[in-house]
């Protein structure tokens, strides 16, 4: 009987020791572990750092190219700009296509891109291939300047010789914005076609469609510096 009581006491003691050791092992130590708030802050900082680094790397590799569409087929297209041909790849999940309408834009699909459209591509370039993140269908503008060599008052057309010896014909339409630099204030003022003279310097912007003949364009806007500015 005594032996049984002794055995029971030993078993009970062993059980108590085991239970206490388990509880001790499970109790968190206040001195070694940070609070959940600090851990969350550290994780957030790490996330921000990674996001910044990724954004930085993306910016470094991101390039923009533009040109007229030569060919579109499925997930790729070919662009031509001043004789250089670029291959563009579309990514089903990544690539977004927009049509620029003045100051606004409208999202469209890659299938809406047509041959001879002028497109601007932003994406990652590898060799001659660019994987498009963004495709913008826009208008192509030519910005240049030169001297007026000829004025056709009946056809409302002027001939301009640029510094790189190119001759452009510019049709001055009713919608063409026409400005002249005031030689005293150097501010621009709106003028009419009759104020233009041969020998004046003209800065101009034209829309290029790729179908123009003999370097003749419809002028989008002109800014004239009268020849008097150079002889005053």
């Amino acid at each position, binding site marked *: 009987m005594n032996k049984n009581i002794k055995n029971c006491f030993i078993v009970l003691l062993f059980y108590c020791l085991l239970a206490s050791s388990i509880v001790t092992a499970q109790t968190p130590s206040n001195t070694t572990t940070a609070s959940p708030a600090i851990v969350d802050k550290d994780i957030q900082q790490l996330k921000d750092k990674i996001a910044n680094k990724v954004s930085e790397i993306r910016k470094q590799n991101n390039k923009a190219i533009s040109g007229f569409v030569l060919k579109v087929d499925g997930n790729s297209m070919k662009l031509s700009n001043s004789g250089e041909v670029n291959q563009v790849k579309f990514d089903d999940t990544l690539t977004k296509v927009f049509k620029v309408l003045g100051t606004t834009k409208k999202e469209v699909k890659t299938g809406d891109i047509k041959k001879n459209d002028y497109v601007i591509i*932003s994406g990652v370039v590898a060799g001659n291939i660019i994987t498009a*993140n963004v495709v913008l269908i*826009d208008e192509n503008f030519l*910005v*240049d*300047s030169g001297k007026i060599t000829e004025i056709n008052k009946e056809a409302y057309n002027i001939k301009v010789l640029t510094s790189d010896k190119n001759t452009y014909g510019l049709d001055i339409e009713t919608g063409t914005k026409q400005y002249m630099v005031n030689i005293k204030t150097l501010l621009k003022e709106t003028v009419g076609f009759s104020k233009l003279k041969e020998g004046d310097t003209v*800065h101009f912007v034209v829309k290029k469609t790729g179908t123009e003949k003999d370097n003749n364009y419809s002028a989008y806007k002109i*800014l004239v510096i009268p020849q008097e500015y150079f002889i005053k």
Partner: protein
Amino acid sequence: MKKETIIAIFLGLLFGGVVAVFISLKSKDIELSTNKVIAPPKENVLSPNLTGTEIQSLELSEPANNAIFDKDIIRFKGTAAKDSLIIIQSPIKDLTFKNIQEKFDLEFPLALGENSIKIVVYPKEKQFRPQEKFIKVYYIDSEL
């Protein structure tokens, strides 16, 4: 020949010579004042100090050609000849100003997509040729 005659001839020749020189100088002045000189005005003539000197060339530190921006307003920073006329033109903006100091720093708006921009500097000294730069920059909205 009498002595008086010789003196009279000598004085006559001397007086005649003085009158001839006077008339010659006077007629030259009259000719210059009545005729128009075909030459550029004095201020346009290359002064000895300008020959051999160079003007500040157009340097554009910002923006870089083919740069991509996620904002629709950028800054044009650079240097050009003092007192020159600078024209910066894009399809959406024409900027004309006199470069009072050599350095310039100004805001310029961008259109969505491609922006073709031409910068031309017309130096104050008209005998110097205009300086030109052409750049393309892109505004790609970060939300795209």
